[in-house]
């Protein structure tokens, strides 16, 4: 059990009639970046709040760094760094004051763990006397990361750290995470962006409170290999309707300028090309988004 940074079994949590988490079981190994990927409302934040001891589950058990979340939450609070989805530092304290405050709360000084936060903090340095509330979105994110790291945690929880951040900052942020991972710290990160799956060692696809798939990106892709065709139509909307009603088509979704068609084995490209309104057909290998939509579709049926 000790080889896992996080181990959960059958975590369930309901808010009234809504089942936010439905028997969630997963393991996060030490030293990996684990991505929790799913749309808004999938239950990612609820799972984070339970694992960071902010919320109690209705059922199930979980261990973080080998400590039970219900039996020994204090031990976890000493060891976990948490960056909530919503900016939660004191907006009226300056960058430097926030950092010093969170370092001292854990009985340390900024200098104790400066090595780890230094690459991030260097970018914040020019604004160190600015109030945290007055920083730009990307800078707030970086400061929050610094504050979550400053007490030398043994595990890092990042709840949607890249939501609402521009593409360049997002990429930079993932580079920073890769750097932190070099130190061997397990990182669990949630994101609604499927394209960020490739930056994680392993991912879990989540929807409506359930974990649909777990594994590395390649594992999940090969496990869910299926014929997918990219189709370009003359009028995408009408073509989409036609495709959905065509025999042998399980589902069809619009994907940029192409329609991705999830097909049954017997369907061939030539049959698809005969559907009215289809201009171009090519076979492609499914990407993570295709897989996700396909699995979600199964869930519905």
């Amino acid at each position, binding site marked *: 059990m000790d080889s896992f940074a996080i181990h959960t079994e059958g975590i369930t949590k309901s808010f009234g009639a809504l089942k936010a988490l439905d028997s969630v079981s997963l393991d996060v190994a030490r030293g990996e970046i684990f991505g929790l990927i799913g749309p808004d409302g999938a239950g990612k934040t609820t799972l984070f709040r339970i694992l*960071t*001891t*902010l*919320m*109690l589950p209705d059922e199930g058990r979980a261990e973080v760094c080998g400590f039970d979340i219900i039996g020994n*939450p*204090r031990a976890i*609070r*000493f060891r*976990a760094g*948490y960056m*909530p989805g*919503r*900016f*939660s*530092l*004191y*907006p*009226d*304290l300056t960058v430097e*004051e926030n950092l010093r*405050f*969170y370092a*001292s*709360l*854990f*009985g340390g000084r900024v200098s104790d763990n400066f090595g780890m936060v230094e690459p991030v903090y260097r970018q914040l340095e020019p604004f160190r006397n600015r*109030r945290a509330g007055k920083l730009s979105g990307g800078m707030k994110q970086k400061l929050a990361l610094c*504050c979550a790291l400053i007490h030398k945690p043994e595990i890092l929880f990042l709840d949607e750290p890249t939501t609402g951040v521009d593409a360049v900052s997002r990429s930079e942020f993932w580079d920073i995470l890769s750097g932190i991972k070099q130190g061997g710290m397990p990182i669990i990160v949630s994101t609604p962006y499927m394209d960020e799956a490739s930056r994680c060692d392993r991912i879990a696809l989540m929807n409506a409170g359930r974990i649909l798939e777990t594994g590395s990106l390649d594992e999940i892709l090969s496990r869910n290999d299926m014929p997918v065709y990219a189709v370009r139509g003359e009028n995408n909307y009408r073509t989409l309707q036609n495709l959905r009603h065509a025999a042998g088509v399980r589902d069809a979704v619009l994907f940029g300028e192409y329609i991705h068609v999830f097909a049954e084995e017997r369907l061939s490209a030539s049959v698809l090309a005969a559907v009215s309104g289809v201009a171009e057909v090519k076979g492609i290998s499914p990407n993570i988004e295709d897989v996700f939509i396909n699995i979600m579709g199964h869930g519905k049926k």
Partner: protein
Amino acid sequence: MRTLLILLRKEFILFWKNKFIPKVAFIFPCVVILIIPLVTTMDVRHVGVAIVSHDNSRLTQNIITDLGATSFFTVSRSGSYADAMEMVKDGDVDVIVEIPKDFQRSVESGNPIMPHISANGVNGTKGSLGSGYVAGSVMNTVARFRGIKPEEKASVRYLYNPTLEYRNNMIPALMIMLLIMICGFLPALNLVGEKESGTIEQMNVTPVNTTVFVLSKVIPYWIIGLLDLTAAMLIAAAVYGLVPVGALAAIYVAAALFIILISGIGIVIANRSETMSQSMFLMFFIVLVFVLMSGLLTPISSMPHWAQAITYALPPRYFIEIMRSVYLKGTDMSALGMQYILLAFFAVLTNTVAALTYRKQQ
């Protein structure tokens, strides 16, 4: 302990950076003690008296002169009762004295027809007290005119507040309201503010002990509350000459117990509310009950019995008893033992509930 100091340091940095709270904390006591006692007076002054005279005699003249001799009355003459009524309607006159025809002659004949006194009952206190004063003054004048001594009346001496200044009664009550606002409202708002801004989320994942965290929320306001109380007492002494007759220690011990108690109530409310408006509304309701039912404004002894029974559960009741006794009578602490014990009991009670309702985990 070290954590508490770190948290307190943060609270004070945030306190001074706030644009609003420091001003409230320091301007509020000055305004309350400087202005409120001047405007909320129940002493009757400047009663407007209109004289409608049907008898131009020396006695009438004496009555008018005597009425005008005190600062209580503003005397004016009016041609007819109807004119005087107009003045009542305009609010210039509260009491009308109508002197009958052949008034002096009827007095001299030993069979006096007395003047007719009517008072505006809209402002009841002013009307009843004012007409009483006017009647007394008129009777005195008539008696002197007849060369007899005015009837001896039982004389009333008001103990501890000889001039019966409403102000002296009011100022200790205002000090208590001040402490309720500063030490009850502000910590509650501060704590709920952390909930609203989400900063409490980041605090709750730290190993900081909840008691230490809550203490860091209330201690700054305890300090500010005691500073404000001191400022209010200095202003009361300098402006109104109201100096506590009893020991300062008796006041500060009671105040210390009370601010711990009231901040406990604030924390309970904060624990139970999600937004500032919720906590404000709840707090306001409680303050209203405290102010109107604890004897701060109106005496408990004149409330209905069932209401008097409720007041035993309202902690400000004990604090106001202590404040008034020590301030006006100079009562010794030992004579108020029960009040101190009850204040301490409520302080322990509210803070226990506060500790039990604070949850890091939902």
